[in-house]
């Protein structure tokens, strides 16, 4: 087994991508994800890969579109303002059924916002990553280890379903160091007979395309894609349960806020408050069943986010009014302390359901 090393989340993710067979990275600098680009620029030349610093986030995602069309594992990374720019490309990638990975190490918005950690791109990632009817797989790591592991999983699932996948991290996970066991290097042998890589005069020409001028044809394409989305929703949902079995107060949080929530609920348990955490690892597909199962014995639900409340709408939709759903969040790059979250837990414990 590989030894544990101390690594920044951004760098662990980059190394994880390389070990998952990614040899094509196209990026553009933006805090707090720039270490990914810097790491790739150092490593790619040694593994026969391509690092290219594009002229913009728009160009970078379109380079990914080209590389993914050719059939290789390609990725780009950015932070919130850059992801807005990538929306166009993401829509085309989805509409062209191209697998790839896009990393968003979120910072606070709107606009240029700030550079401190945020989770305010939840809607952007899960609801409206680009124009049109589409979904993108969205994975939310909450440790440096998961930054390294989920990127490989994201590439595998993107290839399996021919969809773009996103790693939705945040500035805290990107910047922090933690011990990590890097995943083993794996050889990738995904067959991509649809790729535009030259027909070698041996097959009809392949076309990578999202344009269908006849409405009925386009509708059928979308319906077919949604059948695939349904399979994804059925098979690929992931969540972590932490002390949920007897939890009366069920916290739902992902990524950085899940870490803080874990500390808070551990402290709450010491005070005799039965709190638990359901941590979505996939944000799309959203763990609706898992939340309902964990909420079965809970009295209250508390959603904790680094935003004004985005995932909380999905939590409410999931439980459909069967449980009161409370929200606690900080935004603008502010991080709640475990004590802040503990205080919210205590309040809910004291007041009971409203």
């Amino acid at each position, binding site marked *: 087994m590989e030894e*544990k*090393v*101390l690594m920044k989340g951004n760098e662990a993710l980059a190394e994880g991508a390389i070990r998952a067979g990614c040899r094509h990275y196209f990026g553009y600098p933006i*805090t*707090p994800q720039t270490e990914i680009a810097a790491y790739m620029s150092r490593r790619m030349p040694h593994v026969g890969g391509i690092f290219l610093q594009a002229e913009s986030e728009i160009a970078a995602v379109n380079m990914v579109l080209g590389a993914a069309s050719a059939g290789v594992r390609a990725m780009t990374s950015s932070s919130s303002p850059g992801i807005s720019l990538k929306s166009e490309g993401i829509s085309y990638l989805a509409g062209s059924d191209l697998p790839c990975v896009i990393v968003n190490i979120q910072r606070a918005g709107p606009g240029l916002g700030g*550079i*401190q950690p945020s989770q305010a791109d939840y809607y952007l990632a899960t609801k409206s990553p680009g124009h049109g009817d589409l979904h993108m797989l969205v994975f939310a790591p909450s440790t440096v280890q998961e930054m390294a592991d989920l990127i490989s999983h994201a590439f595998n699932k993107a290839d399996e379903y021919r969809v773009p996948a996103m790693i939705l991290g945040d*500035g*805290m996970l990107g*910047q*922090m*160091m*933690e*011990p990590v066991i890097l995943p083993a290097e794996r050889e990738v042998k995904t067959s991509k007979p649809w790729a535009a890589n030259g027909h070698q005069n041996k097959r009809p020409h392949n076309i990578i395309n999202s344009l269908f001028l006849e409405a009925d044809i386009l509708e059928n394409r979308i319906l077919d894609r949604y059948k695939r989305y349904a399979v994804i929703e059925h098979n690929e949902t992931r969540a972590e349960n932490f002390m949920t079995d007897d939890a009366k107060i069920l916290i739902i949080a992902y990524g950085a806020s899940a*870490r*803080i*929530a*874990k*500390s*808070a609920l*551990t402290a709450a348990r010491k005070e005799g408050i039965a709190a638990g955490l359901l941590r979505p690892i996939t944000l799309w597909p959203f763990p609706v069943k898992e939340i309902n199962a964990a909420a079965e014995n809970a009295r209250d639900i508390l959603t904790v986010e680094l935003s004004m409340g985005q995932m909380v709408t999905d939590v409410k939709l999931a439980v459909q009014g069967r449980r009161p759903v409370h929200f606690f969040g900080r935004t603008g790059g502010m*991080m709640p*302390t*475990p004590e802040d979250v503990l205080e919210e837990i205590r309040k809910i414990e004291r007041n009971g359901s409203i």
Partner: protein
Amino acid sequence: MSTSGILFAGFGGQGLLFSGKILATAGLIENREVSWLPSYGPEMRGGTANCSVRLSDEPIGSPIVSKPDILVAMNIPSYHKFISEVVPGGIVVTDSSLVKAHTDRMDIKRFEVEATKISQDEGLDGISNMILVGKLVKESGIISFNTLEKAVHKCVGEKKVHLLEYNIKAIKLGMSL
């Protein structure tokens, strides 16, 4: 104490991040849970900067150390910003060549080390941070010297032998004070 939160605070360029990395690496070598988190952004370019390190026997939730058990303050703004946040019974190590300030707090253990001056006198320019690391390790006992030495080897790299010796000398010096 199952969890220690250590905060290095000062100016960018004083080796705060590296000091933190040495401690975190030492924690890793002792197979403890560790985290390291820098403040990032404009601070990198000379403003106040800090680095949070946690060593713990339990999984670490927040890597942000807002209420440090151990504070290493390397400039006055950082000292003032964090001195009131140190937990009762906590340890504060300051570079008294740079931080000349007093506190009314009687519930903390404060150690003043003229790290910058000593480093200049001893030919250890630029690594006053390691003298402070030595002192904090001596006073807190959070990590053994042996582990610390191994961590320095890991972080500096075996190739840079002279830097290795300098760093270890500075730590030993700090531990002797």
